[in-house]
């Protein structure tokens, strides 16, 4: 108390302060404030951990050469150190790469055994198409087995030839994917024509010989085309592979690497900060825009980003009208009574059902029952060859399952915003001779749009982060095609897709080389968080614009 003389002052006792705190009710303030602070701290901590682990993932750290006590020389990047604990001495973790030679990307060595740390300027780190990174020293560059550059000129030559070799390899791959893929699809169609003819003819009936002949001819022609393309692609690949870089490892082993396999070659110890930054952003861009490599532990996650966005949007498109219509019926048309109360309780409880239960339902109902039914009716010839179209997991079924999972959120939010529409506006409309439906459409619905969007935002946030139900309704580790592309009918709702959430799970727990995937787990997590935040920001902006439009004024 500021003025001890005041008659309002409590008698001075040891407990006075505490007693006063409780008497004024301030302890509640402290408890609630503390709880909020804790919540903020947790969120900040989570972001910090993710960002801290994700950001250095693409940085070119120096390559260290070091001697081990047993006489071996090691070359690699120091990735972690561990101080001595009880009986275990201090240890250092090195990423030494060269997996096909050493069988281990990462090794732990007792720090005491390591001497003579140095960072040779000419140490080369190669990010390879396969087998992870390579560490070594460049000797020469060969074309068709003949040296074209060696010594200090070799490095320049390698940098000059690498893009061309990569381009050739990409071209060969494109022929394989697009050209050969298209031929395969055509062959499939031709075969299916035969099968459907067979189905029509019945079990013992014979297929029209003319049809049989045309299909055979088609197949032969396609087969020839296929052989030609394959030869073409093979020739390109062989031509590209003629250019090789010859390295020696620090142990003195010679290793030839075709330039087609070199994704990036760099000398971290000789790089300036500007070059390092350029390297960092080039890898970050590849991560966002590129295709995954090495069972998803390297390269990019673009298909997963794309799949997540498309799935979330599809889900919102389904859940919004469905939830809104259901809420309007519950609030405006249904007779309020025991039954409606029970329905409401059921809806609220639906939000608490474990998501995998929805996944199982989606698998049983959407995939097997609805999808299987569609296949029976519309794709009998494929079904008879056990080739499901809709009768297997796909982006449509995954989106519908998530829509079901999130519909309670939309219903509850919509009901609340309908209830918040002022009675005056409703009565004003009805008093002008509007029907109930017109009033709902013209007055109640526009006024409750911001509330509805709040529900959709929450639903999107929940849906985008959900993984378990997707794993059994359509997500795969590696999808050959995106759910939207240039081939007719452009939107392929039956396709399987990739998803960032599943990608994280897959990278963190499945790959042969989980140590190398660690930073990618965090970068992908950061990306998933960013994506959810972006989707939400978009919806929040939309809501605020609408809210300003319908804002009620106090007079």
């Amino acid at each position, binding site marked *: 108390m500021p003025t001890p003389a005041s008659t309002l002052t409590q008698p001075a006792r040891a407990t006075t302060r505490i007693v006063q705190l409780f008497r004024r009710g301030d302890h509640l303030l402290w408890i609630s404030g503390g709880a909020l602070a804790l919540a903020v701290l947790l969120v900040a901590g989570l972001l910090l951990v993710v960002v801290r682990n994700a950001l250095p993932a693409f940085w070119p750290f120096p390559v260290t050469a070091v001697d081990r006590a047993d006489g071996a020389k090691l070359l690699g990047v120091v990735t972690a150190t561990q101080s001595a604990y009880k009986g275990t001495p201090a240890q250092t973790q090195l990423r030494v790469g060269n997996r096909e030679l050493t069988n281990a990307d990462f090794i732990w060595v007792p720090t005491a055994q390591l001497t003579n740390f140095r960072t040779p300027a000419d140490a080369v780190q190669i990010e390879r198409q396969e087998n992870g990174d390579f560490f070594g020293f460049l000797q020469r560059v060969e074309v068709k087995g003949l040296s074209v550059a060696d010594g200090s000129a070799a490095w320049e030559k390698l940098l000059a030839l690498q893009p061309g070799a990569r381009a050739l390899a990409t071209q060969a791959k494109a022929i394989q994917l697009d050209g050969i893929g298209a031929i395969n699809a055509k062959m499939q169609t031709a075969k299916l024509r035969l099968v459907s003819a067979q189905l029509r003819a019945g079990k013992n009936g014979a297929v029209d010989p003319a049809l049989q002949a045309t299909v055979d001819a088609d197949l032969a022609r396609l087969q020839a085309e296929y052989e030609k393309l394959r030869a073409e692609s093979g020739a390109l690949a062989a031509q590209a592979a003629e250019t090789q870089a010859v390295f020696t490892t620090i142990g003195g082993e010679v290793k030839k690497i075709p330039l087609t396999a070199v994704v990036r070659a760099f000398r971290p110890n000789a790089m300036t900060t500007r070059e390092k930054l350029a390297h960092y952003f080039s890898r970050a861009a590849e991560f966002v825009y590129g295709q995954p490599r090495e069972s998803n532990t390297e390269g990019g996650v673009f298909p997963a980003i794309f799949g997540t966005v498309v799935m979330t949007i599809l889900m919102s498109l389904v859940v919004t009208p469905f939830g809104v219509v259901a809420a309007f019926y519950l609030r405006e048309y249904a007779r309020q009574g025991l039954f409606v109360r029970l329905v409401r309780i059921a809806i609220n409880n639906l939000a608490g059902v474990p998501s995998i239960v929805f996944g199982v339902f989606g698998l049983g109902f959407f995939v097997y029952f609805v999808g299987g039914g569609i296949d029976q009716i519309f794709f009998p010839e494929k079904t008879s060859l056990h080739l499901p179209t809709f009768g297997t997991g796909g982006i449509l079924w995954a989106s519908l399952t998530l829509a079901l999972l999130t519909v309670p959120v939309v219903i509850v939010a919509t009901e609340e915003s309908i209830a918040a529409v002022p009675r005056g506006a409703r009565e004003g409309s009805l008093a*002008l001779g*509007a029907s109930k439906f017109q009033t709902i459409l013209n007055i109640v619905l526009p006024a409750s749009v911001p509330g509805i969007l709040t529900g959709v935002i929450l639903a999107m946030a929940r849906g985008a982060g959900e993984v378990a139900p997707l794993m059994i309704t359509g997500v795969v580790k590696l999808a050959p095609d995106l759910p939207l592309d240039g081939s007719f009918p452009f939107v392929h709702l039956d396709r399987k897709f990739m998803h960032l959430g599943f990608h994280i799970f897959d990278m963190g727990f499945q790959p042969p080389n989980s140590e190398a995937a660690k930073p990618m787990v965090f970068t992908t997590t950061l990306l998933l968080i960013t994506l959810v935040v972006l989707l939400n920001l978009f919806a929040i902006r939309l809501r605020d614009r609408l809210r300003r439009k319908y804002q009620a*004024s106090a007079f």
Partner: protein
Amino acid sequence: MPAPVPLPAPLGAPLATPKPGEGVSAPADAVPPKIRVHSLDFFYGAKQALHSVTLDIPAKRATAFIGPSGCGKSTLLRCFNRMNDLVDGVRHTGRILVGGQDIHVPNLDVIELRKRVGMVFQKSNPFPKSIYENVAYGLRIAGVTHKAALDNVVEKSLHRAALWDEAKDRLHESALGLSGGQQQRLCIARAIAVEPDVILMDEPCSALDPIATAKVEDLIHELKKEFTIVIVTHNMQQAARCSDRTAFFYLGKLVEYAETRTIFMNPANPQTEAYVSGRFG
């Protein structure tokens, strides 16, 4: 008070103004009744809000309902356009005729009734739309899409509601940006845009300052040339100033109903006299 008379019940017949002197006892000034209420009892669930109310409201006149809070003025007013239908568990006995038509016959078109009987609420309730769209709302929901026709009606209604000069430059701005008094006049413009026969006003000035109130009162004087007006008010001066006839209600019963002059100068009932002179209520 006119004695209760047997009322005609033209079931399903179109709404029509009864011809003057159509066999019923006309009010003192011989104006034909627009609304006739006959022994109306009204219940909210078990609670009775109106007790056997019988009265005739003359066409093209302003009629005021006065009485202490909770006496059932709003309830009666909301019976005239059947807004009470929106409340769960209401029921009534007795009859209400608007323009000769019983409004409780089963096949009555409530939407048509509400177009004929417009309403202005105590708290102004413009829609969160532009001024133009507020006034055009009634026509739009009735299916009018012709732009020129809408423009025409909007301008005319705003003129009649004495709002045109203030609103003509901001027709397409939100109505929520208007002042309270302007909003209330906008609600009046919105009500008259659909050309009703009757306008019901439930304490239209209770949230307005004296100047805005005076504007609305002037408006009532203008409007009663074309419309039948029923106004609920707690303001005795207002009732005295702008109504032709006044009905005094107490505890759900119609205590006295006569020419406004009579109610204020020479009331027959001592309760009325006590209320209008401000000694209770």
